[in-house]
């Protein structure tokens, strides 16, 4: 993969589009960096799985979707959520476990979501969101709707039975689901080559008789275009499609993981290919000021979110018992 974006491709896009895509990636990056600080300083509860370095996957995919399209996500959902349009506020409040959060503080980092914005609360059981996505695609097809479902998961999830069963179901029923595998080379600390002989995740598509494609997951435009193609196929009833996005996790798997298991040269290679830097380098120098404006705007937006979250009210103990059933059970 090259160290710069294909110039010809970049120039096809209007500046406002490129800036918008850029801003979303920066928003994700800065959101994650801020969350990391909050977590390390101990003011944020729980555990976190972050996506620094994988922003182009989330943004490239979600930019190619319609507002009423749906996504499912994983234990590493912050980027997907921001890319799909959840606000830093509703997310930050959720991460703090406060009532105004997108899941009322009951979900937390690993279950971020907002169905009104097309994002099912993230499923943190690796692979668990895949059969779910197929079922959502089934609902869409049975009702003759034109939505598509983009189902995010990592390469590690492709060794789960849920991947096999979920993708096969979507295939045999030709469901409008784009299976998005963010191959960041590691499942937690374990390198992909220790977990399967197969070197290209997209090759598994053959076993289900569907189309598979491997894309540079750090090239936001390549991701965007691949997703567009896949979404069109799905809307035409030719789905599902398996997209493998080659990318890399710049941070630890979770919490304080110093990711020592990533070889230094590998890290160096991928840091050079940072998705945000790649796009930035492809933009004309005239845009410099625009870019720093974006930077400031994003940082301000995140600070607001932090303040809002810190100020937000805690749930009350009574909230423990609500939202279990549609109508509360009264069991004397």
């Amino acid at each position, binding site marked *: 993969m090259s160290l710069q974006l294909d110039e010809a491709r970049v120039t096809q896009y209007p500046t406002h589009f490129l800036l918008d895509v850029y801003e979303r990636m920066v928003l994700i990056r800065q959101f994650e960096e801020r969350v990391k600080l909050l977590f390390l300083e101990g003011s944020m509860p729980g555990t976190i799985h972050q996506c620094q370095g994988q922003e182009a996957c989330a943004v490239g995919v979600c930019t190619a979707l319609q507002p009423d399209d749906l996504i499912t996500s994983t234990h590493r959902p912050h980027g997907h959520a921001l890319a799909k349009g959840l606000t830093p506020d509703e997310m930050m409040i959720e991460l703090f476990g406060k009532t105004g959060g997108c*899941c009322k503080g009951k979900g937390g980092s690993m279950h971020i979501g*907002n169905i009104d914005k097309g994002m099912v609360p993230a499923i943190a059981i690796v692979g668990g969101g895949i059969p779910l996505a197929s079922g959502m695609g*089934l609902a869409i097809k049975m009702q003759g709707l034109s939505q598509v479902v983009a189902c995010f998961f990592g390469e590690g999830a492709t060794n789960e039975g849920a991947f096999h069963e979920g993708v096969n*179901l979507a295939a045999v029923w030709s469901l409008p689901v784009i299976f998005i595998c963010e191959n960041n080379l590691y499942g937690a600390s374990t390198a992909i080559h220790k977990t399967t002989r197969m070197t290209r995740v997209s090759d598994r598509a053959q076993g289900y008789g569907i189309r598979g494609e491997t894309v540079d997951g750090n090239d936001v435009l390549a991701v965007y275009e691949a997703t567009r193609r896949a979404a069109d196929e799905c809307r035409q009833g030719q789905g599902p499609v398996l997209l493998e996005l080659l990318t890399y996790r710049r941070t630890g798997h979770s919490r304080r993981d110093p990711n020592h298991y990533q070889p230094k040269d590998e890290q160096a290679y991928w840091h050079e290919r940072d998705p945000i830097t790649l796009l930035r380098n492809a933009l004309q120098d005239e845009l410099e000021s625009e870019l720093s404006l974006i930077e400031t705007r994003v940082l301000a937006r995140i600070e607001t979110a932090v303040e809002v979250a810190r100020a937000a009210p805690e749930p009350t103990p009574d909230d423990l018992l609500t*939202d279990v059933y*549609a109508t509360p059970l009264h069991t004397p």
Partner: protein
Amino acid sequence: MTRRLSIAEALREAITEEMERDPKVFCLGEDIGVPGGFGGAFTVTLGLEQKFPDRILDTPISELGFFGAAVGAALMGMRPIADVQYSDFLFLAMDQIVNNAAKLRYMSGGTLSIPVVFRAPVGATGRGSQHAQNMERYFHGVPGLKVVAASNAYDAKGLLKAAVRDDDPVLIFEHKLLYGSKGARAESGATDATSDIPDVDYIVPLGTAQVLRPGSDITILAWLLMAHEAMAAASTLAAQGINAEVIDVRSLSPFDWSTLSESAARTGRVLIVEEGPKTGGVSAELAAGLMERCADSLIAPVLRVASADVPVPFAPVLENTYRPDAARIVAGVHQLMQWG
């Protein structure tokens, strides 16, 4: 007007009527809609594929996959009915049932509904250890999930309709020896569980137990096949001058505590009957819960008649020893009558 139907027929009617009523209702499972096939392992969906060609979906053998797909379709507003051929296979789908279906409303802060129905046949029926378990114990008490068990055709139809219309995931247990399946899928040693089914639409509310036989001396709690054994035991006991009240627990999650406690408090003696290993069964919660609720009015400890703590054996002799029956229930009652 009423018609005499078996559980298999009653379930088929319930599915048909609900699918006619609501286009969002559909079925998915293995071998449920194959022309020339079985209509599912116990003929429940036989022929429905002709009526609803697009809403009876034969699945690959992928329990985790199609149960998860049912949950995914449900969160989109569909009302799927997913079944396993034998409840023993629920383990394969359990992650989707417990970690997803039952928790998504809560995890989402109440923004998601999962109106899905799961159907599963239980019971030891000459098939050996892996097609015989009573799986109720593994799902009773799972927060976010509702669990019912239908011991007769009337309840089967009414409970399934209530389940389909419920906005939360409902797991329905059925018993292989009670279906009244016919033809190639008939079960040897089956028990008659037919009922008179009214020609009008009705439901049996989830969460309710049913008094099958009022009595004053002792309360016998049971469900599915054991409810029938309990009734048989009650007649024997009546002849002996013991007037047993028999209650079909029917709703295994949540329990209908008011009905159960009222009876327990009134008779002061409770025997719980369960097919399945005694240790850690559903009966344990019934016993513990009644002790908490009726301590002052219980004359005797709540006792349980259940299976031995062993896997289900194949040999008929052993399986019949494994499965509680009327005789063991009568013996349990006699033991309880000795107290106080």
